[in-house]
């Protein structure tokens, strides 16, 4: 079941911003491996699954990619559309599907808070975070960290 909230990226980015602010005071309890993570995983699976077709990569970058999950791109691209997009804007690999990144780009244009993040370079996904809580990985800082060789 998908909920059609992705048509409202502006609302979604504000919802993300608000959730982040509300969770911030509790960040010291947000650690991986415990029962708190289990609750987060269930909630994230339900909510993000329904809204974004979330694949539980645990390395969530939704606000940087137009509130559109890059894991739903068949190439798992993290930095924009590949060169195979069809003239009608559909995916090279799944011809009947609209390119995930075409949608992401259009949505990011109306996002006033995080829209510009779309132009930044995102690091590759961290494989060991799969099926964990993206919120917890966000707060511990592991998800947002660049690979060691990219750091200044």
């Amino acid at each position, binding site marked *: 079941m998908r909920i059609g909230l992705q048509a409202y990226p502006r609302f979604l980015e504000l919802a993300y911003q608000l959730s982040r602010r509300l969770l911030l005071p509790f960040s010291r309890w947000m650690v991986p491996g415990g029962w708190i993570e289990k609750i987060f995983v269930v909630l994230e699976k339900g909510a993000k699954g329904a809204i974004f077709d979330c694949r539980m990569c645990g390395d969530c970058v939704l606000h940087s990619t137009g509130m559109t999950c890059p894991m739903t791109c*068949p*190439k*798992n*691209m*993290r*930095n*924009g*559309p*590949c*060169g*195979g*997009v*069809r*003239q009608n*804007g559909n995916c*090279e*690999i799944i011809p009947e599907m609209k*390119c995930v*990144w*075409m949608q992401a*780009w*259009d949505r990011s244009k109306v996002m006033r808070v995080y829209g510009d993040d779309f*132009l930044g*370079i*995102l*690091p*590759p*996904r961290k*494989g060991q975070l799969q099926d964990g809580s993206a919120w917890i990985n966000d707060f511990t800082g592991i998800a947002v960290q660049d*690979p*060691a*060789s*990219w*750091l200044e």
Partner: protein
Amino acid sequence: MIPTSRLERVLKSGRFAVTGELNPPDSADPESVFERALVLAEVCDGINATDASGAHVHMSSVGVCALLTRAGYEPVMQVSCRDRNRIALQGDLLGAAAMGVRNVLCLTGDGVETGDHPDAKPVFDLDSISLLKTARSMCDRSRFLSGRQLEVAPRFFLGAASNPFVPPFDFRPLRLAKKVEAGAEFIQTQYCFDVPRLEKFMRTVRDLGLAEKVYILVGVGPLRSARAGEWIRNNVPGVHIPDAVISRLKGVPPEKQVEEGKRLCVEIIQQVRETPGVCGVHVMAYRQEELVAEIIDEAGLLPRGGYGSMGADQGRRLARMSTQPKTL
């Protein structure tokens, strides 16, 4: 000191560069690589070795490049993220550097579904931009992605692809900007059959100040016939061929379509050469390699100074000796 890229020197000297695409053989014989390289080397500043393009298996780009450098040619090694994870990609980059490869083109790669092994597991651990940045850090910071130190850093002239001819058109120049930020020094574009679209793209590229930061080589190639054009348009991802091109080919009798396709390619080269910010062309003549020399000649791009083939004859002999089985 590690010798630098010859392609880089040509571009830095301000000469209009020409690169050509070598289609790797389905063969274990090095001679089949040399045969293909020979027709390209005399007219090109660099030879691209494709990495299972269209997700079809052929000799690997590392293998082709190793043969080319041994023969004294100047390869551009294409590296795609489709088949290898970050461990294999970085290892191949080091191996290629050790074999004398100086130019690398970082690609995401076509989906396996388009190729001859559609049941293969697609990898896509990195994408073209994270691969670029990873290769850049290996060169400039002498580190693997993990942060582990290299003993000797490779030295690459790093390239990336760009496709100005597919949507989202307003994002394409911005994606190019990302690639430049990630470390791309040259760009080879997808096939150009739509010059007005390219000019529009280049205008934005210049406005963004990217034309001074990166050398852009426009992809060109001859269409064999109207039918081939229609097939490519419908089956090869990312290649945009306007109706006007197909109808122009249809307008001549079938036996003259090869000639017309070649003429069209020459005309496109001459047009893109006049576009500010374009530094060269990348000729892709799939299964028509014998036409490349004629196209480059007719487009007025000869002589080339023999960069691609410098020392090739001697190198070829050496390469052949070293690939022959040793007898005791």
